[in-house]
Each structure stands twice: as C-alpha cells, then as structure tokens.
C-alpha cells in the first residue's frame, strides 16, 4: 500500500532498501540527458539529480522526467539496492529551508513509532 513513507536521510537509506521513502535535500547537480529522436527509446532512466540530504550525505535520484527544481526539494521514491532513489513524485521546498533542523525530525522519526510509524499497520 505504501501509505507510510518514512522521512529519511542518507544514513537511513540502507535500512529501507525496496521501500518507499521521503527525502528532502539540497540540489547539487542535475543531469538531464538530451537525446536525439532516434535514441529516445533508451531515455528511460537517463535523468538524475544529486542532492545533499539533511545529514550531508549525497543521494542520487533517478527522475521520471526532466523537471525544474528549487534549491530544496522533497522526493518520494523507492530506494534501490545501490542506495539511489527512483522518484515517484517531488515537491519543491523553495530556496530557504533548514536542513539541519529537518534532520532532527528524521532522527526522531526512528525513535517515536507511536507518532511516526515506519511499518504499515496490519
């Protein structure tokens, strides 16, 4: 059902391989591949963005399509075994956002399952 999408930082990704998560980061690099028409069939996973997560670790996010990002972006996506994320949706968080404070939320998310459940309810 993927109703529950834990907020994570880089350090927590390995715990959530195969799961859908939420990650807020600062955009560092955007790789948008522009392909000629005859090559476009292989463009499926060509667009990626590298973000610095709130614990300063760098995470590669594979995009569904090229998009315009603000400085800070929240991605919802599934964690791959190589700790990259396949994006489902994203939300631009604008150009001012306190990542350090957000990291506190991510840490507390692991400590208070009554408030921040990380496993789906039965």
């Amino acid at each position, binding site marked *: 059902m993927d109703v529950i999408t834990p907020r994570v930082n880089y350090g927590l990704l390995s715990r959530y391989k195969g799961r859908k998560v939420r990650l807020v980061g600062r955009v560092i690099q955007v790789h948008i591949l522009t392909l000629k028409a005859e090559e476009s069939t292989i463009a499926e996973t060509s667009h990626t963005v590298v973000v610095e997560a709130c614990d300063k670790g760098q995470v590669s996010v594979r995009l569904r399509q090229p998009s315009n990002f603000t400085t*800070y972006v929240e991605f919802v996506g599934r964690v791959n075994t190589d700790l990259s994320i396949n994006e489902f949706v994203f939300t631009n968080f604008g150009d001012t956002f306190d990542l350090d404070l957000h990291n506190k939320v991510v840490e507390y998310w692991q400590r208070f399952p009554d408030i921040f459940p990380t496993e789906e309810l039965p």
Partner: protein
Amino acid sequence: MSSECTSNLLNSPSSRQITSRSVKQSLRPVTIGQIMKAEEYDKTLLIDEEEVSQIKLIANVCSVGVNASCTTYILGDGTGTIKAKEWHADDESAFKERIMVNTYVQIFGNLKATETERYVSIFQTRPVTDYNELTHHYLEVLSVHLSITRGSLPPPQQALPSSSFSGQSETSSLSYLPYGMYSNNVPILNNDEGFVSPLHKEIRRLVRQWANTRNGLGESDDGMEINELVLRLQSTYGRDTVRDGVQWLINEGHLYTTMDEEHVRITE
C-alpha cells in the same frame, strides 16, 4: 461549514461543559499515524489517553475530489493517509482552487470516527509556502506528545507562561506552550487569557460574548461578523489593525470562519 457540523459544535454535550472538557476542546497538532493508531472509545478518539477532537495537521495533498456539497482530499504526511472533507459554502468554488495535488497544506478540523473510517471535517485549509512549517509541525507534535506522556520540561531562561492557552486546564496549557511561544515570538504573560496583545484579547472576548449571548437566547450562532468586530473596535485600534488582528487569530487557529469568510467563531 455544513449545518451538520455547526449543530454538532453547538449541541454536543461537550461544548456545554467547556471547562470540564477543555482537553477535548483544545486544538491538538497530530500526525495522521497518530489518528490511525488512536484508540476509539464511544465514538471519540484517544491519543495518549486524551480525547482528541479538534486537530491541526500539515500534510501533502494526494488527491482532490470536488462534488456539489464538499471537497474531499486524501492527505498523506508520511505516517499514513486520511480522508478530509471540506463542506462548501455557496460561493466557495473560486477559493477551493488554491489547493493543488502534491502540495502541502495546513488543515484545521474536527476528527470524525465512523464504524468504517476515520476522517477530518475541515474548518480551514491553508497552503504551506514556507516548508520549515512542516519541520515545525512534526516537532510540535512530538513536543505535545512528550509533555502529555512525560510531563513538560523545566522552563528555559525565558519566562515560560504558567497561564493556560486561552484559559484552559493546566494539562492542555502545557501541551501548547511551544505553540504559543512560536506564534507570538514573545513569552506569554501570566494573565487571564494567555494573549499578549490587548487587541487579540478584546477580539476573543467579543466573539465569545457574541456566542454566549446567542446561545443564551436560544438562537443559532453562525459566528460573529468581522465587520461587527471592526465597528466596535476601530475607534480604539483602527480598521485595518482590527482586520489584521482577526486574520492573525484565524491563521493561528484561535478563531475559525463559519458560514463564510466574514463570520468567525472562537476555538475553545
């Protein structure tokens, strides 16, 4: 707001016993996960063994469905998803279009539990534009949870208010300290209302008085007209200041609009 909601607010036993049921009547910040895990007792939901009815929520809009009588949102905040219904006033359609899928909104509403589902009956929605609010919301939820389950922290250097949030019981005032501190940016003085600004106190007093008078006469209370407030207070504070004051109280959840944007009722 629908007439159903209105009459519920007025006629439910709890609203007649505001002092004894103050915990239920306070506005609690929650996550959707807390709502879904909440124990149900006689159609009311208990979080941390306290009744919760009016809530504040920040969540992402997963879908929006509009029909003639209400707009239904599916909201997700990472801890779960929940349905939220906003009943339409007659000419609200233009206002509704502000809420888009995959944006974050702040919701003030009433928690409803039926046999088959739990949902939020919305008083007010507001798009989130500064996403630090999201961080703040989660931390506030945690802070309230901890102060209820473990007692509040000793006050920091700043004089923490020992008075309550709008004159409620001690338990609920403790839960709302961070909220009050945040919204005012100044410590709340130890006075009757817990509000620093004389204007804010005056507005709340008049709105409450309006409701009490209406209820006393057995008339229905559709909320006090904002123009009425402006008329009564503009000689002291000026027209724009009064309107700004009302808007601030609405934004902070101390007042909420009723049948239209021009009528307000107090959040107790």
